[in-house]
C-alpha cells in the first residue's frame, strides 16, 4: 500500500485518483501508523512552499525518518521542492533536507510561471522513467525551481531557455517538478513505475 500524504493542500486527491485508475493500492492519510506501515510515500503538493511546510507540521520529521531508513518517497511539485534544504518563495523556509540544494525563483527573462507541457530528457537509470523512452512531455506549473547541489542525485532536465531540473532520484528518494498525475499517459506510467518500485521493496522485507 502506498500512502499519499494528506496535509490540507490542493490536489492530493488527484494523485490518489491516478493510482486508483491504475489499479494500484493507495491511501490518502496523515496517520503516523499508516506512514510507518506504507510500502512507499507520496508527498504531493499544490501550495505555496511556506504554507505547505507549515501544513505538513510534525509529519515532516516522521517522513524524513522513514525516508532516511529506506522507504521509497516520491515528492511532486511543491512536495518535491520540500525535499531540498530551503526555499525563498514568499520568505525563507526550511525544507526536509533529504536532497542537497535550494529552491529559487525561475530566472527572469521568460514567461513565469513555467506553465504547460515541456519535453523532459530521460536519462538511463532513472527508475521512474522505465519504459518511457528517451524523452517525453510532462505538465509543469511552477514559478520556483530547484538548484541541485547533491552530488549523488541523478537528474532529468527540461529546457526552459535554461537547463531546469525536472526530476531527481537519489537512492530511495524521488522527486518530480512536473505533475505526473496530470501528465496524461506518460505521467500515469511514472506513477505505475513508482508503485512497482515500492511493491518490489515491500516483497524483499
Amino acid at each position, binding site marked *: 500500500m502506498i500512502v499519499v500524504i494528506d496535509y490540507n493542500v*490542493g*490536489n*492530493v*486527491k*488527484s494523485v490518489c*485518483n*491516478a493510482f*486508483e*485508475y491504475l489499479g494500484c493500492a493507495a491511501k490518502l492519510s496523515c496517520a503516523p501508523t499508516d506512514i510507518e506501515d506504507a510500502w512507499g510515500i507520496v508527498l504531493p503538493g*499544490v*501550495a*505555496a*512552499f511556506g*504554507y505547505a511546510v507549515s501544513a505538513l507540521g510534525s509529519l515532516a520529521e516522521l517522513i524524513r525518518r522513514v525516508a532516511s531508513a529506506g522507504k521509497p518517497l516520491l515528492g511532486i511539485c*511543491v512536495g518535491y521542492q520540500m525535499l531540498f534544504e530551503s526555499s525563498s*518563495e*514568499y520568505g525563507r523556509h526550511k525544507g526536509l533536507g533529504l536532497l542537497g540544494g535550494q529552491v529559487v525563483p525561475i530566472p527572469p527573462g521568460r*514567461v*513565469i*510561471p*513555467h*506553465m*504547460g*507541457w*515541456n*519535453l523532459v530528457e530521460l536519462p538511463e537509470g532513472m527508475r521512474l522513467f522505465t519504459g518511457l523512452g528517451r524523452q517525453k*512531455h510532462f*505538465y*509543469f*506549473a*511552477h*514559478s520556483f525551481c530547484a538548484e541541485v547541489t547533491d552530488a549523488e542525485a541523478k537528474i532529468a532536465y527540461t*529546457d*526552459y531557455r535554461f537547463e531546469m531540473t525536472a526530476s531527481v532520484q537519489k537512492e530511495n528518494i524521488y522527486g518530480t517538478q512536473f*505533475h505526473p*498525475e*496530470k*501528465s*496524461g499517459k506518460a*505521467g*500515469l506510467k511514472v506513477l505505475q513505475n513508482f508503485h512497482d518500485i515500492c511493491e518490489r521493496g515491500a516483497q524483499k522485507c
Partner: protein
Amino acid sequence: MLTRRIIPCLDVKDNRVVKGVNFLNLRDAGDPVELGARYSDEGADELVFLDITATIHSRKTIVDLVRDVAENVFIPFTVGGGIQTVGQMDELLRSGAEKVSVNTAAVANPNLLAEAAQRFGNQCVVLAIDARRSKDRPDRWQVCVKAGSEPTDIDVVEWAVKGEQLGAGEILLTSMDADGTKAGYDNELNKAVTEAVNIPVIASGGAGSLDHLYDALIDGGADAVLMASITHFENYTITQMKEYLRDRGIPMNL
C-alpha cells in the same frame, strides 16, 4: 522547449455543456465528464470548465463535477464561474482541479488574488478577464463582469498588469466581441495584454479555423488558445489542430 497549449473550454449549465454566441443563444454540446474525457484522449493539453450559472445551487453541482472529472481525466483542468472566496477555491483544488479562475470577485476585491497566491501559489490562480472593445476609444478594451453583463470603466491592459502584480499566475482573456462568432480571435487585444504582462495568457473567443489558432499564438503572442464551438460541434479534432500548428513551426505536445 515549452509547447503551446490547446485548451477546449466547457461552459457548464445545469450539468450540461453549452455554447452560445457573444455569451447568448446557448446550444447543448453534451455531458461535461464525457466530453472532458474525450478531449483528454484526443490530446487536449488542458481543459477549462466554467460554471456559467454560478448560483448557490450550482456551486454544489460544480464541486461534484470536478470530483467526477478528476477521477476520469488525467490532464490539468481549471474551474471558474462565481468563485468568491479562498475557501471555495480550496474546495475545488482539493476536489481535483489544478487551477481556479476568478473574474467578478477579483474586480470587487483585488486582494483575493494576493490571498489565493500566498495560499496556493500563483500557478493555481487564473485571472479571467471578459474584455469588450471600448466604443469611445477603439484601441482600448473595458473589463466586463457578471458573465459579461456589466461593463466597468476598468481598462483591460491595466487590470491585467495589476492582476499579475497581485499574484495571478495566468490570464484567461476572452474577447466578448469575438466570442462564438468563429471570425477569429481579437489579436490586437491579445497582443496588448501579452506585451504588458510576463505571465502566460490564454487567448479566448472567436476561434473558427486553424489559421485563427496560429494567428492568436503568433500575432497575438498567446501562450495557449482556448476554443469551444469549433471542437464541441466537431469542425476540427484536437489532433488536427496540433498537427496544423506543428507543421507551421509551433512546438506542440504531439
